[in-house]
């Protein structure tokens, strides 16, 4: 019990994961970091990127997060993501389609209110890049 890390990842829409794992690697805004059990209390903002979950010596899950926070406490690691997807559940094609749509919308929108769309495009771009690797 004590030698496993409690990890949970939630987005506003739902809780994507909650359970005991060995090791989590997350994309902090100042650089990627890994969290093992009994990590010192630590809090950071995240940038868009891949959260890798390792258990039993192998990567069991890859999740793509769009910004958010990671909070490490003695109780475990909590990631609050603005948006998150399990990378096994999305295909490169569907992301490409969404990206094209978002780009179209951005072009159609013009200047006003495009900050959110721009963010959407950059998020999808990095998600696409992460899927290729």
């Amino acid at each position, binding site marked *: 019990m004590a030698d496993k890390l409690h990890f949970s990842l939630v987005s*506003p829409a739902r809780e994507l994961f909650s359970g005991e794992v060995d090791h989590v690697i997350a994309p902090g805004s*100042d650089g990627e970091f890994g969290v093992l059990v009994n990590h010192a209390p*630590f*809090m*950071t903002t995240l940038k868009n990127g891949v959260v890798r979950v390792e258990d039993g010596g192998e990567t069991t899950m890859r999740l793509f997060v769009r910004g958010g926070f990671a909070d490490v*406490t003695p109780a475990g690691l909590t990631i609050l993501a603005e948006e998150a997807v399990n990378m096994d559940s999305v295909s490169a094609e569907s992301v490409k389609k969404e990206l094209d749509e978002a780009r179209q919308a951005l072009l159609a929108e013009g200047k006003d209110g495009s900050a959110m769309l721009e963010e959407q495009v950059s998020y999808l771009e990095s998600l696409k890049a992460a899927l290729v690797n």
Partner: protein
Amino acid sequence: MSGLKELKNRIGSVKSTQKITKAKQMVAAAKLRRAQEAAEASKPYASRMANVVANLTASMGDGSGGPKLLAGSGDDKVHLVVVMTAERGLCGGFNANTAKAARLKIEELQAAGKTVKIITVGKKGREVLKSSYEDLFIDHVDLSEAKDKFTPYAIGLGLDLTKRFEAGEFDVATLIFSEFKNVLTQNPVAKQLIPAEAPDDAETIDLGGAIYAYEPSEPEILESLLPRYLNTQILSAMLENAAGEQAASMTAMDNATRNAGDMIDSLSLQYNRARQAQITKELIEIISGAEAL
């Protein structure tokens, strides 16, 4: 005694009303399930977010010197009340209860000599409060096109509030919405949004004397965390409100359907009595007519 024809018409009209309320009830029940699921699904995020904020504020001490969203503007004169209700009626006392709570809050603030400004979310609350407080309205959020997607509206309102707060338009913002307890109970509650308050039931984790490390710096984290906390609170209020609206609507329509049923029963009884009385009368007329011959 009302004529047979009129009674028959009334029964027919009550029957069609019952059909409508029944249909509305079933629609509400189906929508309720979805709304409830959405509200439930958003809870882990909201409660974790609250815990994180609680932890941060606890480790920051009294919060002074922190970002304004947390520490407040240092004043307590202008209060902004955000009243969140539904877009539609036919949901029993749902909108009225929230509006009443809002009215109490506004009166209380005004009695304490504060300036009150109001932002309404959802049409119904605006209609109710319009008669007494129209001059206090500063904005309105229309959710009629939202369907089930509240996120952009929540973010929009959050940004708007932050902007107004930074421009010094108000000192304290309170959100009044209906808390979704269960299908039968929805309580109007007031929640302070700005300055941010961690809920009482948030778990603060005992760090055992360890010191939190922050990356980047603590102020920077708070700076990006607090607006999100605000958005999250607004979003979960919207989701709870939506679930509450459907639940209230379902209960109200269920009552209406039952009342219509009772009404149909008593009207049918009356109709049958009248019909029998008429037949008896006709028989008497025929018999006494025959006797007279």
